[in-house]
């Protein structure tokens, strides 16, 4: 039965995790498990994939446990996963090559937007005052209107 086999795998993983023993290994498992995606198409972080019937995440978690126990460093473990499951297994773009653009671009756009806005504001402040609506052809003798406005808006 499908549910049974899944539960069995889950249990294996559970024991594997327990057998990792040292809290350092547990922390690495949690850290690395959150830096990878489940590749079944559920779009979830590896350790958060909870699909009944997801054989990918179960297997991947077992492999991660084994790799940590063997003593591989983080980069090697991630590289091994990329080799086996493809580049989409890593949950965020890397910091090399074109992937760097992913990280730089949002901040670059924000900064250039700010600079652009600053330039616009400076030009605005320095530029000639645009004509205010309602001021056409009326000049002088505005005192009584000013008083009227004050009177009508006083609290």
């Amino acid at each position: 039965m499908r549910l049974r086999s899944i539960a069995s795998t889950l249990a294996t993983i559970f024991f594997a995790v327990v057998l990792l023993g040292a809290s350092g290994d547990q922390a690495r498992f949690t850290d690395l498990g959150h830096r990878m995606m489940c590749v079944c198409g559920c779009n979830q972080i590896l350790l958060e994939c909870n699909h009944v019937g997801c054989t990918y995440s179960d297997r991947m978690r077992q492999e991660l446990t084994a790799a940590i126990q063997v003593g591989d460093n983080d980069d090697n473990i991630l590289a091994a996963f990329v080799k086996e499951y493809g580049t989409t297994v890593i949950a965020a773009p890397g910091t090399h090559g074109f992937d760097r653009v992913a990280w730089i671009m949002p901040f670059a756009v924000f900064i250039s937007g700010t600079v652009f806005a600053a330039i616009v504001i400076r030009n605005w402040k320095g530029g000639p005052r645009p004509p205010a609506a309602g001021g056409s052809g009326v000049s002088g003798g505005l005192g009584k209107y000013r008083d009227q406005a004050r009177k009508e808006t006083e609290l």
Partner: protein
Amino acid sequence: MILALCLIFAAGLLVYVFAPGVVFERVTDKSRLAFLEERKQVVYENLRDLNFDYKAGKYPQEDYEPLRASLEAEAAEILAEIDALNVHPTAWSPSSL
């Protein structure tokens, strides 16, 4: 049966659309006075907000007075034009917008 239903439905809608009767809204352009009145309300609201915030202790007097003066000047220009239009309804040029 379905065909009849479709025909009745379509006929009903077509009658509704193409027999609007005699009463319908006329599409008119906004008058300059109406436009100025809108502007006046906006500037008045700004002035009231400023006065209220000043009374609430949000701004010191040295900030408040120039702000009020500039808003009142803006309001005065609008009021003057409203008055002028009320006396001489055609005394404005379209380019003033």
